[in-house]
């Protein structure tokens, strides 16, 4: 029996101890009319050899592509050490560190993670992660509404990732929170300030500020932060953690800095992996810490005075506060954070800076080359980080399909989310792309447009 160690002798001895005649008898409290017969739709078991072959075949069927898609999930080099350590049994198969004395490995690592993320974002404190970037933004919105008390209106630019906006809606929909979307300037690709000013005439709890925004474009984060604060609202930053090696962190935006920073942690050592598991990060200023959802680790001492780590501020959490908790969340993305912490340790500030700078430079180089092709233009005139939108003389699908047939994923198209960007393509070239890759892309692109 796969994964069940019981011998026949064991079963007999155990039943004898229980005083039952059969395992079946142990289910005698389940009413007979509810009992399940044989399971349908579940195939017979495979041996590990068989499933290994099946999975290898399916993996090969999917193959490898040279990827220029970003749009919220980014391909970066991940040191081999990261996942070899992360998948050690002691990290991989341990539970939430409720028993602190038997969990110092995970707890200390999470404390180190909190320190790194707080510093990277320029904030005071960090939680131990949330599910992903999109749901982290939803939690930030809920947190801002709890903190603000008098308004539950949130201003959210349409330059925020469209799926993040959808996820926020799904999560907050039943809490009478009003999400007010602010359009973007079709020339700059930035949040439209006039419309923002107008929306801000009614009281609101928070403004969401993406940096870089979904189009890769930089927003005027200092002005936006100060403006939100001038309206007695919170500033919620949505940031790419790699970019923070180069960019002013949210904690330093404007006069006082953003109040909450969230984002997708995936670029910090998590494989693309068809979308998950990733992790969302959340950091904030000190006064908001008791409104923060999710697990938080604190440093303390044992009864002999030795330094150690524990889960703390649990009075916020559902297992203590139940219906009065800050959130229903009861897990973090522990293993992903383990990887991210090791990843950040291996890269350090210099390594992370180089990754950011090379990703930026690569995309810049690529966009320069592509916009030399007649008819290809930048959709927006603003500077960008490591992703940019191009407007094409043909439907983007022509380019997509053509490059795909050459093993290249050309970028992200906007079909559902921004109908006005129909002939546009968003391209991202991280540090994983070498000059030959960029040349290949440009040549294929040129050919695709020519035919």
């Amino acid at each position, binding site marked *: 029996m796969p994964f069940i160690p019981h011998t026949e002798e064991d079963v007999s001895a155990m039943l004898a101890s229980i005083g039952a005649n059969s395992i079946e008898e*142990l289910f005698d409290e389940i009413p007979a009319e509810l009992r399940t017969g044989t399971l349908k739709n579940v195939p017979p078991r495979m041996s590990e050899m068989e499933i290994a072959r099946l999975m290898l075949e399916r993996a090969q069927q999917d193959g490898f592509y040279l990827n220029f898609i970003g749009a919220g999930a980014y391909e970066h080099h991940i040191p081999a050490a990261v996942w070899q350590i992360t998948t050690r049994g002691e990290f991989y198969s341990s539970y939430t560190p409720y028993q602190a004395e038997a969990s110092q490995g995970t707890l200390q690592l999470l404390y180190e993670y909190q320190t790194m993320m707080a510093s990277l974002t320029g904030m005071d404190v960090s939680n131990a992660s949330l599910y992903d970037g999109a749901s982290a933004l939803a939690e930030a919105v809920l947190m801002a509404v709890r903190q603000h008390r008098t308004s539950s209106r949130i201003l959210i630019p349409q330059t925020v990732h469209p799926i993040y906006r959808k996820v926020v809606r799904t999560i907050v929909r039943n809490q009478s929170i009003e999400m007010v979307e602010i359009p973007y300037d079709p020339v700059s690709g930035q949040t439209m300030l006039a419309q923002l000013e107008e929306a801000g005439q009614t009281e609101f709890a928070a403004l969401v500020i993406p940096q870089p925004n979904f189009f890769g474009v930089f927003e005027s984060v200092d002005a936006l932060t100060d403006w939100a604060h001038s309206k007695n609202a919170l500033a919620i930053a949505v940031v790419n953690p790699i970019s923070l090696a180069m*960019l002013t962190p949210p904690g330093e935006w404007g006069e006082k800095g953003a109040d909450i920073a969230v984002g997708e942690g995936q670029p910090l050592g998590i494989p693309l992996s068809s979308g998950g598991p990733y992790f969302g990060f959340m950091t904030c200023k000190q006064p908001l810490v008791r409104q923060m959802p999710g697990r938080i680790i604190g440093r303390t001492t044992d009864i002999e005075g030795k330094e150690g780590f524990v889960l703390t501020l649990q009075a916020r959490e559902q297992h203590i506060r139940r219906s009065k908790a800050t959130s229903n969340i009861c897990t973090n993305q522990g293993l992903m954070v383990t990887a991210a912490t090791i990843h950040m340790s291996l890269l350090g500030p210099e390594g992370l800076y180089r990754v950011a700078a090379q990703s930026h430079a690569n995309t810049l180089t690529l966009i320069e080359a592509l916009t030399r092709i007649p008819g290809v233009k930048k959709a927006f005139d603003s500077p960008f980080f490591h992703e940019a939108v191009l407007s094409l003389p043909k439907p983007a699908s022509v380019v997509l399909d053509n490059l795909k047939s050459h093993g290249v994923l050309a970028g992200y198209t906007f079909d559902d989310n921004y109908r006005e960007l129909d002939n546009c393509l968003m391209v991202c070239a991280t540090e994983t792309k070498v000059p030959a890759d960029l040349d290949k892309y440009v040549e294929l692109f040129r050919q695709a447009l020519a035919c």
Partner: protein
Amino acid sequence: MLIFEHSRPGRYNYSQSPATRATKHNIPDKLLRQSKPLLPEVSEMDTVRHYTRLSQKNFSIDTQFYPLGSCTMKYNPRACNSLAMLPQFLSRHPLAPEDTGQGFLACMYELQEILKGVTGMAAVSLTSMAGAQGELIGVTMIRAYHEARGDTARTEIIIPDAAHGTNPATAVMSGYKVVEIPTDEEGDVDMAALKAAVGPKTAGLMLTNPSTLGVFEKKVAEMSRIVHAAGGLLYYDGANLNAVLGKVKPGDMGFDVIHMNLHKTFSTPHGGGGPGSAPVGVAERLLPYLPVPIVAYENGAYRWLTEKDRPQSIGRLSAHMGNAGVLLRAYIYVRLLGAEGMHRISEYATLNANYLLAELRKAGFEIAYPTRRASHEFIVTTKGIKDKTGVTAMNLAKRLLDKNFHAPTTYFPMLVPECLLIEPAETESKETLDSFVNAMKEILVEIETQPDMVKGAPHLMPLRKLDEVKAAREPDLTWTPT
């Protein structure tokens, strides 16, 4: 020693970043960061050494027995890890075209079908990233259902007092008022209280079955009739599905919506606290509201169903499709077990729990619900011990750590005083259970002979008992260079 204390300015790993600092850029100066973030500047070897040593300070399934009630700590097959991490799976971008991911999508589709099969639900969405998110999805669908019918007076969710804290927290997050109902002496929901609680305001009932008390709610069919008759829907918290897998299906018990914790019943790793994954299954009437994306198989190919295909969907819960890598692990696990293996999970989990109950009872421990079968878990109460000796359930739990066993869940469910919720899971052998019983017996003797020693536990761990009160009163949440 923290990783930051190994750090020295200027040290870095040349192999792990681009060979040069790219200088080409067009970022406005005012946007450029002025300060260096506090990331460690340590060598690759020292990083490997630091985190390898840290890992050794953890208990884990791969090193210890973990009889942690309500958590289903069982073996996480190593093949699930290595096969889910094949490089092609890892490198696939979530927004890559569907025709470049047919292998992956086939796994997801088949997992949906298998989960439907084992739960008796009409459809499954894989998107939820944890049990609590599964709950939010479920209650949001219940709300969407009532709203679609214009039935807007339903403002209450009924929840037994034994429920996980996530249940009431979720109900509140979904805009509902929580009506708590008590448990009777046998550990079942108090039926009179339920009858009194239901009414025109009832949106639904959230139930864990078997409950967190480790017993099967025998009157679940009647509860279903009562709630449905009042116009409410039934939510099944799948936290304890491992206890009844293949024995009774939530769909057959009358539930309208369920979540399944893959990191419990389907053995995906707990990872020190996540990632989880909790696919949601629905009965026919909630079908339109299922969150997207969902995998469909049409014309010989797999594709994602989106909002366009499912206009009444409550929407999306994650930026992409949930915890794909966790789902792959669960898929591999169910294929390794197959239909027969699904039945065996609950059989041997239940056998292990009832055996451990019997042996601990013989050893002199008090069982909280002595007249009941254990499901896959059961409760020992040490109130008698505390009254007599002052040794608490937590003291006993910490002393177990000294004996190289993880502690059971303590002080949950809250309605049983000084409780230990014990769940051995099906992958543990009789010898391991026997050695756990021996450790418990030894502690009983120690409580008699050296109660202060037990109160001071743990003694043999890297650290003694940690001061949680200090941690909460004077929060030290990030390190600062001194």
